[in-house]
């Protein structure tokens, strides 16, 4: 059992940090929500509907689960094009998201030659393809250089400001320090605490301190 009592809210217009140590169940939660892994009991719904019941699901929820999930011989643009075809999305939108993520110049190259940072950007492009009201990104800061981290923070902030619900997981609180308006702490497959950033800062002094306090001893479940 990887998850037990994982209940929390990610509200529109806010970046929700989804933090906890490695193995706490962050990725599994996201996979269950996307219908990739099955839950023994309980429901995972998006906007009140099961993910698999959503028509063109990428227009409801954009997700980045694993930036390395690419065919190395297929170009980034073609990767986005097949995704667009699967959702009935126009090819024009592919070029739009490529511009948003700054991949335009490399989009026709084989994805196998992309750096991890470029793959993260391609993953974000895929999540944005359907212009969804909700986004769910698993460790989007992984592999980014300092410049990339700044870019990613700005992008997430912008996306939330557009009124989207943005759930971002991380095992490092520092990455979310300046952007998360709401934080969910997880450990051992449970949501330990969820609170607004301001409330946490008042109570623990800083998000970093809150993270350390709340997740102490909450390692991976065996």
């Amino acid at each position, binding site marked *: 059992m990887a998850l037990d009592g994982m209940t929390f809210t990610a509200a529109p217009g806010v970046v929700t940090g989804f933090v906890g140590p490695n193995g706490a169940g962050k990725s599994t939660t996201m996979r269950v929500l996307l*219908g990739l892994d099955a839950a023994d009991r309980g429901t995972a719904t998006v906007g009140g509907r099961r993910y698999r019941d959503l028509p063109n699901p990428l227009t409801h929820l954009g997700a980045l689960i694993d930036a*390395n999930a690419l065919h190395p011989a297929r170009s980034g643009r073609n990767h986005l094009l097949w995704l667009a075809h699967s959702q009935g999305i126009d090819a024009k939108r592919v070029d739009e998201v490529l511009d948003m993520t700054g991949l335009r110049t490399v989009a026709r190259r084989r994805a196998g030659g992309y750096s991890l940072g470029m793959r993260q950007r391609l993953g974000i492009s895929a999540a944005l393809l359907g212009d969804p009201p909700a986004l769910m990104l698993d460790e989007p800061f992984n592999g980014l250089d300092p410049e990339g981290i700044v870019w990613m923070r700005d992008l997430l902030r912008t996306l939330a400001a557009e009124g989207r619900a943005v759930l971002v997981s991380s095992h490092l609180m520092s990455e979310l320090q300046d952007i998360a308006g709401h934080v969910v702490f997880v450990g051992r497959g449970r949501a330990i605490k969820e609170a607004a950033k301001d409330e946490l800062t008042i109570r623990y002094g800083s998000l970093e301190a809150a993270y350390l306090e709340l997740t102490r001893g909450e390692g991976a479940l065996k």
Partner: protein
Amino acid sequence: MIRAEWHKLRTVRGWLGGLIAAFAVIIGLGVLAAFGVHTSCGQQEGEACPAPPIGPGGQAVQDRFAFVHQKLDGDGTLTAHIADFTGIITYPPPNHDELVPGLVPWAKAGLIIKDGTKPGSAYASVMLTGSHGVRMQHNYTEDKAGPTDARWLRITRSGNTIKGYASSDATRWAEIRSVDLPGLPRTVQIGFLVASPANVTAKPGPHGGSIVQARFTQATAVFDHVDRTGTWTYEKLGDDGGMTDWEKFHHNAGLDQHGGTLTISGSGDVAPAGNEAGATIAHTLTGMIVALIAVFVVAVLFITAEYRRDLIRTTFTAMPHRGRVLAAKAAVIGAVVFTGGLIAAAITVPLAVHLMRSGGNFVIPSSTATGVRVVVGSAALLALAAVLAYAVGALLRRGVAAVAVAVLLVVLPYILATTSILPSAAAGWLLRLTPAAAFAVQQALPSYPQVNMPYAPSDGYYPLPAWAGLLVLAGWASAALALAVARTRRADA
């Protein structure tokens, strides 16, 4: 969903290249083989081989028999009684050391109306056979059974209509069949036919396969109560000039006439020719096996690469109905392979046949319908086999293992069954039960119950009809796909 999967397939250059290479191999090997074929007969190098006669239906036929005939102008009839029907078989098993009296099952003695004496010309005939009773046969491929105990035969002509009758007492006559020979001229030949096909046996070979042996036979029939007068002319129709020792030293074929009694001896057969007559149109598709393996690799990678790269999660995130995704992928790989295979086969068969013929080789003619069936059927075989390989890939999620299983299921049984490695009974079962059954679409010549031939898979004859063979393969492909869908639905991606 189909469009997304098609986009996936065509945007990996290696896959598209692999498929194009597979289809190019079909064309290339077909053309190469056509250039490589040289047949020559006789002492001189490059001497052309005699081509078998072509019957009215366009098939290659055998038309070699003792023909005793006279002219018939307009309508007429011939009645006769077969007083005796005997024959010899040279050196048959088990000991192969003596001449044995006896008739082979399809030895023929009877009455015939024929459009002249050119081999391959139209005819209709009512005949007594060695062990299949009285038959009415016409134009080489047609055969209808009559009574088994009759010895009186009658044939009549009225315009283009020929009727055959049989009787056991010369008073009560049973009509066997009325056949139309379109375009029959006013003047035809009417008379007697005696033929005796080779005694063919197949036995298991010492190293697998089977050894087919054919032995010379001769039949002799005595006709009396012949109701037509006039001079009878004997002709050894379709004679190639060769004579066996039996004919030279014991009893030659021919006519012996004493009053109204005619004793006629002859060998040969009046029947459709088999694969022994030459190459068929299916021989041009030798590249299929190599193409199949290339197609398997692409079809398997089309799904296993997604698992290897975890791309399958992205796929199922975009398209959460997993069964439908697997079906869409199957449809895409099947349709693409079918289209490519169809183009390749439609180019290869006519081109290679043309090349072989212009190189002086005889290629057994096939009807347009048969040609279309071989071409379209081969494309369907490639496509269904690709779906099977893909489904095995979806089930096993391991590329190399899935390609190996596909080769084991489709290619290996075909090779075992058609290369004289297995006894022909075992080969027959492989071609009924395994996916290799679908190679039946490539059978260019039909088998005939009225011809005594081994009709072995190694000669290009399959135990199932083309549609049934394809159905067996389709069954395997659907079963594998159903298992793959069941596994994929159940498991976490």
